[in-house]
């Protein structure tokens, strides 16, 4: 779990970093919608949320000192850091030792809680007759098919996947999807033969939510590239996140940009829109469940029938890993098998179960693709069977350690570009150069007996300088001799 949380943190910070990078006036506009405020709020750390909530209904600012006083002494540093982060996100303003919420943010977040603010910030439901065919379960299936089609497209192009998983449905992917895949360096190569990159493999091992975030971030970059209005995109994104699963929403009020975006997100299965009536669209759980913790509690959910279907097949824990590196995976999805195949040797396959083994060779294979040991471990951890989830640590330590060892044994050499000096004319010359190199700290290795010296590249440049003007000196000196 800890590892998984790590990954969660990571992707959250990425989106956070993006927000931090936004200039102030952009932020103001982003905060102008309750939906956006709520979504952003949900991305914060627990402490951050608490801080904001305690200040939400205070019109006056709090003295930073007092805020810190609220926390236990050993935790105050951490709280301070959180406040700083909030400030970077421009959620709080801090002046004269007082912290207070960004007024716009405060107002809109209040609106989000009380239900005020601008009209239809949480989407405008479609008034017309509802489509019987579209149920949450149906949406879930649709979304899963779309999403896994993409992952499949990636794996299918990989050396392993296609071979073992013959029945990979070669779904034709739309242009925009390919563009994003290529832009995000998940895949490379021309239209004809796109091949998955190492980062692509790493992408495969992430949990669904992180994957979606990665895509959305890429989409933002793409939008920038096509100089669309980023804030508009962001707001729409956050609005989608706040929509209700299984309800039809009207596209009437949407701007052209947003419609375009909608059609593109549709290709990812983040929303569903029937080609025949463009007036309504349905968000799928891929996007509505974004701001919930990535702890995908497929099993933990209240067991309401629809719930189990709402989670991606990859979201439900299905892997059992034994201390002897045996793996039992309760899955029949070719995609899952293909992904597992990245780092384990398949032994046998049954209707709903495959067994295999994590071996040195299989892990080597993964490592050669640039997949790190930690990624493998995280993946196993995330998808561990509910019965394994309850144990601490989730995975048997023997296996995780072994995987790390296998990774370590591959980098036996630590190479650094350098220059090597030898055959010094006289010792003092070596001494001088040695001392100088020591001062500027560029020595990689030195042998004072054999008068040999290895310095880094940048060190070399400096030393050349030294030698040059020293020689010049000596030259002038010799001239004067004459």
């Amino acid at each position, binding site marked *: 779990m800890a590892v998984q949380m790590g990954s969660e943190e990571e992707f959250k910070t990425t989106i956070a970093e993006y927000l931090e990078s936004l200039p102030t006036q952009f932020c103001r506009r982003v905060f102008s919608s309750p939906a956006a405020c709520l979504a952003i709020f949900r991305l914060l750390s627990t402490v951050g949320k608490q801080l904001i909530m305690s200040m939400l209904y205070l019109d006056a600012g709090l003295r930073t000192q007092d805020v810190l006083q609220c926390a236990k002494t050993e935790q105050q540093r951490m709280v301070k850091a959180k406040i700083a982060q909030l400030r970077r996100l421009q959620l709080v303003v801090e002046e004269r030792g007082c912290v207070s919420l960004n007024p716009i943010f405060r107002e809109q977040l209040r609106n989000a809680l009380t239900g005020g603010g601008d009209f239809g910030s949480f989407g405008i439901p479609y008034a017309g007759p509802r489509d019987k065919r579209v149920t949450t379960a149906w949406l879930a299936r649709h979304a899963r098919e779309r999403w896994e089609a993409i992952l499949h497209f990636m794996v299918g192009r990989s050396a392993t996947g296609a071979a073992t998983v013959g029945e990979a449905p070669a779904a034709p992917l739309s242009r925009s999807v390919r563009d994003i895949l290529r832009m995000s360096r998940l895949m490379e190569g021309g239209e004809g033969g796109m091949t998955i990159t190492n980062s692509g493999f790493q992408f495969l091992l992430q949990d669904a939510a992180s994957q979606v975030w990665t895509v959305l971030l890429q989409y933002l970059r793409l939008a920038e590239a096509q100089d669309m209005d980023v804030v508009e995109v962001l707001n729409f994104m956050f609005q989608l996140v706040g929509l209700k699963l299984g309800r039809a929403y009207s596209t009437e009020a949407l701007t052209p940009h947003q419609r375009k975006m909608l059609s593109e997100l549709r290709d990812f299965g983040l929303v569903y829109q029937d080609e025949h009536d463009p007036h309504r669209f349905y968000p799928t759980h891929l996007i509505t469940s974004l701001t919930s913790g990535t702890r995908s509690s497929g099993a933990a959910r*209240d*067991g*309401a*029938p629809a719930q189990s279907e709402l989670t991606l097949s990859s979201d439900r824990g299905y892997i059992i890993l034994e201390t002897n590196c045996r793996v039992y995976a309760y899955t029949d999805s070719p995609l899952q098998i293909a992904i597992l195949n990245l780092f384990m040797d398949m032994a046998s396959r049954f209707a709903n179960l495959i067994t295999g083994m994590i071996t040195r060779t299989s892990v080597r294979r993964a490592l050669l693709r640039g997949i790190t040991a930690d990624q493998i471990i995280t993946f196993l951890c995330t998808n561990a069977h509910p019965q394994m989830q309850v144990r601490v640590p989730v995975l048997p330590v023997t296996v995780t350690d072994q995987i790390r060892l296998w990774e370590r044994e591959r980098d036996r050499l630590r190479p650094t570009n350098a220059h090597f000096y030898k055959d010094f004319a006289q010792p003092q010359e070596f001494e001088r150069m040695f001392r100088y190199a020591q001062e500027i700290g560029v020595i990689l290795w030195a042998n004072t007996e054999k008068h040999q010296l290895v310095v880094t590249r940048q060190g070399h440049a400096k030393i050349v300088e030294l030698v040059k003007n020293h020689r010049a000196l000596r030259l002038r000196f010799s001239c004067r001799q004459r």
Partner: protein
Amino acid sequence: MAPPGNEPGNDEDYIDIDDTGPDGLKGADGGYTWEEEYKRSWDVIQEDASGSIQSSVAGISEQRKRKRRVRDTEVVQRGIIRHVVVVVDQSESMAVRDLAPSRIHAALVELEAFVGEFFDQNPISQLSIVATKDGLAEVLTELSGNPMDHVGALRDKANKDLAGEPSLQNALELAMHGLRRAPSHGLREIICVVGSLTTCDPGDIGQTLQALRHAEVRVSMVHLAAEVHVFRQICSETGGQLAVPLDADGLRDALMAMVPPPALSASRGTSDMVLMGFPVKSVAAAVPTPCACHHELTFAGHVCPRCRAKVCSLPTDCDVCGLPLVSAPHLARSYRHLFPEENFVEIPPAATAARACYGCGMDWADPQKPQPARDAPKPAAGGSRYQCPACRHVFCLDCDIFIHETLHNCPGCA
């Protein structure tokens, strides 16, 4: 099957068909468990039509739960105020490793848990610990109401060095002597944890037994090896019970079974009014003041209403004037033993109009009914309903068990 009263508490996880209680050496048909032919727990699991065993497993667990829920609830006078001497065998026989890591180790660990639980459920009772080795017996802790003393004594490394043979007689005599100064209204008990099959006594243990009976001390034993006649006799004649646990869990269950206050025998002696102090929690003072119990400087504490001494924790006896100090909640904690909840009666699902369990407010198991709300969790386990005879409200099995084992009051009647 063992009588329901003595069911082990913590066997939720595994399906255990031949479930032996603390003194559950007696098997289903009265014979000893090792005389019965071996029962394999998986024999009783049948696949259903779809070839899944889930339904059958669920059935078994529910039936086990149901077995548990029948309790004796007739209102009896219980000895709320108990004076218990725990006798720990520290003879070499305790070094045997049939309990991991060793008998003595397991025993001490479980005893520690016991002490905690004991004072949790009998807040105004007192405890003392006696150890016996080399044919001698020594008092580790005097009778006192402060759990910390006893836990400290149990954790003492010295307990781990074992020597010679135990002397049951000496231990009992010593324990009895300790119990002499215990007031007559209290219940007098001795609980022995013994690993040795022998005892080396200076005199006739029969006389000790007579003395015990005369002093109305009830002796219970947990024997880690086997049942020994003299031990069994002492227990049965003093109205205690002898348990021979099969494993560590058994040991725990055996000890835990002695935690709830036992029912009083009608022939018991007088009951008294006990003078007790209800100290006030002293406000965190500006300067720390020494506490009477550990002589350490502390800010907060409870002030004895009679002698104004400050003690750290309740319940305990005031170290200065010896007044038993309790807080009202501590007394309240014991009320549940006095007024046990009545058993609920099982009624057919058709017999009630209620759509949901009154306790947890969740719908009954009813596949065709859609879930009311996204966050209304699974329907109640099983189709069975249980009705409180007093308030006529209907509950699901889980709530029934929770109410009777943890909550101790019926939501409907509260």
